[in-house]
């Protein structure tokens, strides 16, 4: 089990290959990347994430515990990046290895839903014409 909040780019390869194990036949992963939305002539230039630590670290671990209680999984890794994340770059990576594919799929999806529910992490979309705190609609866009 591996849970991490970090400022540096996420090492996706290490996360996924780290989940391979002879007792597991399935590795499901989810990676959230910065989507460069457009609206009229404006566009998202990057995202900026902040986290309340160590509460956010604890919540990632709790999500891992919830998964282990609900499904038969061999390995769970959840990594969330904070700071500036450019378009096409990963902000979150979830990797679940399990003996069989159903729990791997279900647990990886559960993990991202739970992150969006309980992890104290916030995303600011920085547009070409201002910014907006996602979820709060607080910002400076016209």
């Amino acid at each position: 089990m591996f849970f991490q909040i970090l400022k540096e780019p996420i090492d996706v390869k290490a996360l996924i290959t780290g989940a391979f194990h002879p007792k597991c036949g399935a590795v499901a992963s989810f990676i959230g990347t910065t989507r460069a939305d457009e609206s009229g002539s404006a566009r998202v230039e990057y995202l900026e994430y902040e986290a309340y630590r160590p509460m956010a670290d604890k919540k990632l671990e709790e999500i891992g515990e919830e998964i282990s209680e609900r499904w038969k999984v061999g390995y769970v890794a959840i990594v969330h990046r904070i700071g500036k994340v450019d378009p096409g770059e990963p902000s979150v990576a979830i990797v679940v290895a399990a003996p069989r594919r159903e729990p791997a799929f279900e647990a990886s999806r559960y993990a991202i839903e739970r992150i969006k529910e309980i992890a104290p992490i916030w995303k600011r979309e920085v547009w070409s014409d201002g910014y907006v705190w996602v979820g709060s609609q607080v910002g400076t866009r016209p």
Partner: protein
Amino acid sequence: MSDVKVLLFGAAADRAGIRQTKVRINHVVTLGELWSVLADQHPHLIPMRETLAFAVNGEYARMEDTVSTGDEVAVLPPVSGG
């Protein structure tokens, strides 16, 4: 009288114009009472009230939960990780 450390995040920090403050309390208050003091000092937070969650010492807490001197309170706008 002593202090509670209050951290603000995301849109709440943005609205209040601060990321951290101290609120003076008399030993033990409810989170609701602490909020009243904080809202007086940072009225720009008031319109966000319905959307905010709170944590005491790193765990989600309700308005009727107590806060003691030395505790850390966090003001949490709707989370948007992922």
